[in-house]
């Protein structure tokens, strides 16, 4: 029963969609649900909009599950929504955040791939698009954005896991989200994307080693966020520019968001550092999500300060 939804287990796409409808119906004053489009296989791309109603409010965008096999991402997005609405009347910080910001939460970005990872290939990463000219399915949805498309760190081979696609925004999922965020870019102050695994908090750029113009503000927000993560269970996250902290890549959503003017763009690589990797046990969902919640709240509070 959805009233006793278990946030400490992994859920199938159907269960997550039912849960979204349920949260939309049971929290009308804080949550609304809409779709930004359809996936390659025709599945709806649902987004939950959190926050008190208001006009010309600033916003934060959160997406999970760009890569299908990274199941801890969607688990965190659901955890975030549950915590945010339950903390609204209990936690002054969350009340302030939801009063000042709309927070768009997309629990499963790559809906086709996620469903495929539940039914057929647990370690699928890409979307499920198919180009008649090639045998292999799918594009890496984090190499398909219009920023340095198909350059270093992306593959032009359709059978590779980091295949960037035939052209930028070729994937309907990427195109739909990009169009929505682009329309809202004046309101959106932070873009957060959740991945696994490496225990890192990354910010632009991925495609070059130059520092971003507002480096000091972004670095201080990231520093506070990883300290918040460590305060929970002592887990250490690295943080820094993605190109030097993780590896060079091009066409990522984080760089695209930053380049269209969103001042704070982060990519979280959640637990762990490889012991379980993509097979993070359900027993670790709660601690992972609890510490990550502190980091997101820290970043949101940072947005309220002048920097």
């Amino acid at each position, binding site marked *: 029963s959805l009233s006793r939804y278990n946030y400490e*287990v*992994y859920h199938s796409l159907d269960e997550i969609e039912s849960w979204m409808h349920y949260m939309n119906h049971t929290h009308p004053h804080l949550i609304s649900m809409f779709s930004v489009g359809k996936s390659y296989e025709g599945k709806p791309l649902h987004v939950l909009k959190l926050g008190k109603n208001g006009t010309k409010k600033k916003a934060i965008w959160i997406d999970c599950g760009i890569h299908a096999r990274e199941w801890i991402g969607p688990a965190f997005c659901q955890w975030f929504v549950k915590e945010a609405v339950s903390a609204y009347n209990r936690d002054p910080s969350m009340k302030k955040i939801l009063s000042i910001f709309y927070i768009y939460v997309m629990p499963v970005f790559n809906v086709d791939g996620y469903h495929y990872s539940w039914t057929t290939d*647990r*370690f699928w*990463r890409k979307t499920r698009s198919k180009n008649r000219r090639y045998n292999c399915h799918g594009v890496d949805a984090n190499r398909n954005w219009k920023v340095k498309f198909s350059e270093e*760190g992306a*593959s032009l081979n359709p059978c590779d896991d980091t295949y960037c696609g035939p052209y930028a925004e070729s994937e309907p999922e990427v195109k739909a989200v990009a169009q929505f965020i682009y329309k809202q870019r004046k309101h959106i102050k932070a873009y957060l994307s959740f991945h696994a695994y490496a225990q890192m908090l990354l910010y632009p750029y991925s495609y070059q080693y130059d520092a971003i113009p507002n480096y000091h503000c972004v670095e201080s927000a990231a520093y506070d966020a990883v300290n918040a993560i460590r305060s929970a269970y002592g887990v250490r996250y690295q943080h820094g520019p993605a190109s030097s902290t993780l590896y060079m890549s091009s066409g990522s959503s984080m760089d695209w968001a930053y380049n269209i003017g969103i001042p704070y763009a982060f990519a979280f690589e959640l637990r762990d550092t*490889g012991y379980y*990797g993509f*097979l993070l046990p359900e027993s670790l969902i709660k601690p992972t999500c609890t510490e990550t919640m502190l980091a997101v709240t820290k970043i949101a509070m940072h947005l309220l300060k002048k920097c």
Partner: protein
Amino acid sequence: HSYSNRYAGDKVIRIVPKNDVEAQELKNLYRQLQVDLWHPSSISSIWTDTLTDVHVSRNSSQVLLTYLRNANVQHEILVDNIQKVLEKQSVSRAPRNRR
């Protein structure tokens, strides 16, 4: 069996190439064996000291492990049998289905 037992005997192996020669030989071997690279996400990101986690099938794992031992390349088996880990996870899920 979850996923029709397709991961029986598959392993996840962590390898850290000590020098450029090892890194290049690993890249070639990964391509040849068509491993599923978990970390980093692209073979082109593998250099000296790059921590690589690869998911290999049961058959390929024997070839890869033999090479690593003979070439004295530093490695660690992170998951010895992926199917068993998956079965364990799906056990926690099964009761929910029954409800």
